[in-house]
């Protein structure tokens, strides 16, 4: 089993740099998800690993081999495409066997391997069908079957679930997770959906504008985003970001939001910015409305969105939209009367207003 290493990887189209010298090391067996908005370069990065895009600069290493000049077929990777890339004229069995046949695998072996994969993916009853006669989820499974059957060193997934409806997606997510556990193959997975990233990844790579913003486990990213971008991208709904002015003292700094004061965790970075504006980040989950702690903040409730066990309260804090996520169970009848929340200062993030970088959390 081998890992994948990207060093100073660059992709340029003419003068336009779409991947900007990124470094990334994917450990053997690891499931890494590249996530980011459209056009952030994540798919391009994946395609460079697959060998479908030429590498403009830097190196891709698979195992201990630099594969920049290695043909896709010799990189021993398998890829699952967004729109399945199934051959409409071949039935399921032939689709799965395609790669094997191209490699001139002996016939009886092909049959055995296809049967095995079909069994794993629950496709055995459909082996004789054409893709047109399959459901979306079945097609997606066939696409994965095509990848699995070759026993590659690395799996590459290019937004494989984005053509499915929500229910199927969560089902397939679980299936992919299970599959990875079973096969234990190094996987790199591209998606723009942070939920997929959070649920599937051993580690998440957040990309934006051709560069990596942060690499870490899902919880690391959730709890300790290094900048406003990651904070805004990970989590659903994303972290609330409010402009505030630092005041109080170095030891007990507070954020002045409108005319309300919010205690902040003390740090040198924060102390340096006394009197300056910052962005204060509060996760919707961390706003407490039922047992108000110290110095609650008043908000103006605009809308209650009930999701079942949870509810989203759309409020305004100093004229800025602010979302609070709360349990419904015990307090359902009082939700529409919420007018303030409190938050544990240690769960508050403070970001530089200009660079967006988190303050007071070096290395944390």
């Amino acid at each position, binding site marked *: 089993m081998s890992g994948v290493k990207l060093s100073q990887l660059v992709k340029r189209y003419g003068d336009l740099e779409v991947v900007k010298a990124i470094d990334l090391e994917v450990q053997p067996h690891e499931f890494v998800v590249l996530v980011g908005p459209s056009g952030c370069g994540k798919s391009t990065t994946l395609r460079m690993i*697959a060998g*479908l895009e030429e590498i403009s600069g830097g190196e891709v290493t698979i195992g201990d081999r630099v594969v920049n000049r290695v043909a896709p077929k010799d990189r021993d990777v398998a890829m699952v495409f967004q729109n399945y890339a199934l*051959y409409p004229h071949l039935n399921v069995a032939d689709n799965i066997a395609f790669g094997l046949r*191209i490699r001139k695998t002996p016939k009886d072996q092909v049959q055995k391997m296809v049967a095995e994969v079909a069994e794993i993916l629950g496709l055995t009853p459909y082996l004789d069908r054409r893709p047109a006669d399959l459901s979306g989820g079945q097609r997606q499974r066939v696409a994965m079957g095509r990848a699995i059957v070759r026993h590659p060193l690395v799996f590459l997934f290019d937004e494989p679930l984005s053509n499915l409806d929500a229910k199927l997606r969560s089902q397939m997510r679980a299936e992919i997770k299970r599959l990875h556990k079973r096969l234990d193959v190094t996987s790199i997975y591209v998606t723009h959906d942070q939920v997929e990233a959070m649920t599937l990844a051993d580690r998440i790579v957040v990309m934006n504008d051709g560069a990596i913003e942060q690499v870490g486990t899902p919880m690391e990213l959730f709890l300790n985003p290094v900048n406003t971008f990651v904070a805004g991208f990970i989590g659903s709904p994303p972290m609330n970001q409010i402009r505030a002015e630092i005041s109080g003292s170095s030891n007990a700094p507070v954020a002045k939001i409108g005319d309300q004061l919010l205690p902040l965790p003390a740090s040198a970075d924060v102390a340096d910015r006394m009197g300056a504006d910052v962005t204060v980040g509060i996760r919707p989950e961390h706003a407490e409305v039922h047992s108000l702690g110290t110095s609650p903040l008043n908000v103006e409730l605009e809308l209650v969105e009930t999701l079942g066990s949870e509810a989203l309260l759309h409020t305004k804090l100093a004229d800025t939209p602010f979302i609070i996520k709360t349990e419904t169970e015990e307090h359902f009848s009082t939700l529409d009367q919420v007018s303030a929340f409190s938050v544990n200062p240690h769960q508050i993030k403070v970001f530089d207003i200009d660079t967006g970088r988190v303050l007071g959390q070096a290395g944390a």
Partner: protein
Amino acid sequence: MQSESRLSKIGYHLRREWQIYVMLLPTIIWFIVFLYKPMYGLQIAFKDYSIFRGVDGSPWIGFEHFEFLFSNDQFIRAFWNTIIISGLNLLFGFPAPIILALLFNEILHATYKKTAQTIVYLPHFISSVIIAGIVITAFSPSVGIVNTVLGWFGIDSIYFLTKPEWFRPIFVGTGIWQEAGFGSIVFLAAIAGVNPSLYESAVVDGANRWQMMWKITIPSILPTILIMLIIRIGNVMEVSFELIILLYQPATYSTADVVNTFVYRQGIQSGQYDFAAAAGLFNAVVAFVLVMIANTLSKRYSRTSLW
């Protein structure tokens, strides 16, 4: 009772979707005016037609025109010539644009590709008269390029256009030269419609270009190929007769004379529209039967069909 409810259903449908039916109208009118109404005139195939008396005023004569056709050994010969020339056209002329399209698809250099395409499309836009002139010159025994080249190998010059055995190869070859490029457009369009990730997936799977062509491109455009083939079979009786008229000689009638040229000499030239209509009707019947057969076969074996 049931038909009434069905009528009211149609009425409701018409009221609701009338915009769509209005859009359909021009096509229907076109069909009525240019196809169905002229069908009324087909009856002159069974009449002693006079333009002055009109379709209705001309007397019925039954199958006399058809009897004349089938009792005429030149018509029989022309019929077989049509089948043979069409068969050769199908055999060599039909795959040519497909091959060309596949070749174009493999050219990566954009400018080179565009230039090459433009060059092969050009002959399509040249009038048959010019094409015939080019062919006559190219195969001329004294100055023709073909005989010049043959001369380099010590082969005596051949007066190709008067040799019955050479007519079909020259005609079919000319047809390919003239139409293969333009015909490749539809296949290029079909190829462009193939999902690019199929190729990427195949690249990752390790397929080379040749394998991708055979295992992806051709199967993917197969429905297009079959539809074009069925349409082509429907036109089997319609060999491009202007070009034949321009290229053939009495000396090559034995291989070159097709139903349309025969009809032209016998019918149109002496204003016998009734006779020409009979031959045209016969052509249409043959073509219709062929299309039915081809369509049924295609439907059965490849799920692709015209209807």
